[in-house]
């Protein structure tokens, strides 16, 4: 199982430049999604005129399925500067790859729970590390795409774009840099210094 938790309201609002399109994933049954909280927040954002549309689907990480559904909302997506994805990290990464020109953001953090983790495509991986970094990396996960799981940028080990650990693997931070350049978001690399938070969902519940 895994559990997704909404990021703080202020954080989510700060991700929207002017208008956002929302994708909710009601997932696989292995994900525990904060449906009511998400609905409430989205209603508020809609009332404030900050959303162009909302789609609720399952398995956004299935690209064929997701593509068919999103095609029907082409206009609403076009009107939005941001696509806000309420899902686990894999859903966000799948949509970011599907829309490489668009600013795709994660509205949730994902934590692991014991038990079956569900079936997800092999192209993307979510470590369920809690605090999700996809919003400062253009939707490419620095935890799973970088051998050192670096969150402040590229190390000096990449050669000809390949990782020092695995020469068949592209440097995750090169991909991130390229994606950010493509969507005109290189300014996010000026965000404050990131220090990883290794707190688990259990730690948070005990707070």
């Amino acid at each position, binding site marked *: 199982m895994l559990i997704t938790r909404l990021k703080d309201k202020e954080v989510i609002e700060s991700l929207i430049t002017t208008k956002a399109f929302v994708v909710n994933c009601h997932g696989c049954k292995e994900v525990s999604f904060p449906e009511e909280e998400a609905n409430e927040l989205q209603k508020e954002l809609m009332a404030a005129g900050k959303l162009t549309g909302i789609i609720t689907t399952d398995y956004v990480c299935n690209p064929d399925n997701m593509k068919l559904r999103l095609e029907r909302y082409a206009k609403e997506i076009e009107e939005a500067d941001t696509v806000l994805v309420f899902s686990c990290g894999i859903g966000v990464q799948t949509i970011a790859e599907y829309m490489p020109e668009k600013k795709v953001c994660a509205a949730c953090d994902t934590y692991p729970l014991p038990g079956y983790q569900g079936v997800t495509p092999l192209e993307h991986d979510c470590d369920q590390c809690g605090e999700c970094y996809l919003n400062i990396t253009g939707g490419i996960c620095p935890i799973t795409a970088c*051998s*050192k*799981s*670096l*969150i*402040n*940028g*590229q*190390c*000096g*080990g*990449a*050669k*000809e*774009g390949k990782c*020092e*650990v695995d020469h068949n693997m592209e*440097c995750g*931070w*090169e991909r991130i*840099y390229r994606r950010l*350049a493509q969507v005109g978001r*290189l300014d996010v*690399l*000026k965000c404050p*210094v*990131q*220090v*990883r938070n*290794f707190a688990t969902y259990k730690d948070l519940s005990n707070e």
Partner: protein
Amino acid sequence: MRITEFFDRGEFVITAEVGPPKGTNIDGLIEEAKEYLSDISAVNVTDNQSSVMRMGSLPVCIALKQAGLNPILQMTCRDRNRMALQSDLLGAAYFGIDNVLSLTGDHTTLGDHPTAKPVFDLDSVSLLYNMVQLENGKDIAGNDLVGEAPKFAKGAVVSPCSDSVDAQIAKMERKIMAGCEFFQTQAVYDSEKFASFMKKIRGMGITTPVQLGIVIPKNAGMCKYMNANVAGISIPDEMIQELAADKEKAKSGETGLAIAARIIRECRPYVQGLHIMAMGWESKVPQLLEMAGLK
């Protein structure tokens, strides 16, 4: 002494590095450093360089300090979490070690303990940020330190001839944002590429001092190996041929020193200092400085 003070005085700052041994005896290392490296501004001590386990950087820094040299503590984030890094920084400050070079570190799989757990709890950027917090009397979790806060000259590295130089510059900017006060570069063999890198960063408004990184090329084989395996290094073919042309001259160091001195002369107008990674050729450092017109 903090090397930032030398930069502030406008001096051309020369440093070289030494690597601790895989063993308990450092008498030879200290003697060599005293003999060949006592005239320069500071001496870097590597930290389990290339992910190969050796004596720690901190004890060797302490021994160099006691021998009258000015050490720079290299710290990688591969082997220690944020608690261990901070306690070593406090220990360094106690012993008067006030120059620290922050590095992420090579991955464990590249070295001689490939099955070890790679840590990377912090990275080169967050370690710099952590040092600033210690200087402000706090640890990285926000707890107060007791007594006088440490003060470090905080350095980092950059790879100017990397094939992903834009991503490197973005990282360089994050290091500066985190508190970096000087840079030492990866080994440079292409003066033109280096000059355009320096012009680019200065044009962007980056004013932090940069020390040109030099690895004296020992022979053609070493160059070919570095070209194939070391990130951010590309040695032009003509240079490799120069080394291969006369094996005796390469062996004695004559050719390598001539090449290194030439690169230093070509790049000197763009930099505020020089960092020599002699890799066992520490005894040739004085000669190199003379040939480069720095002595």
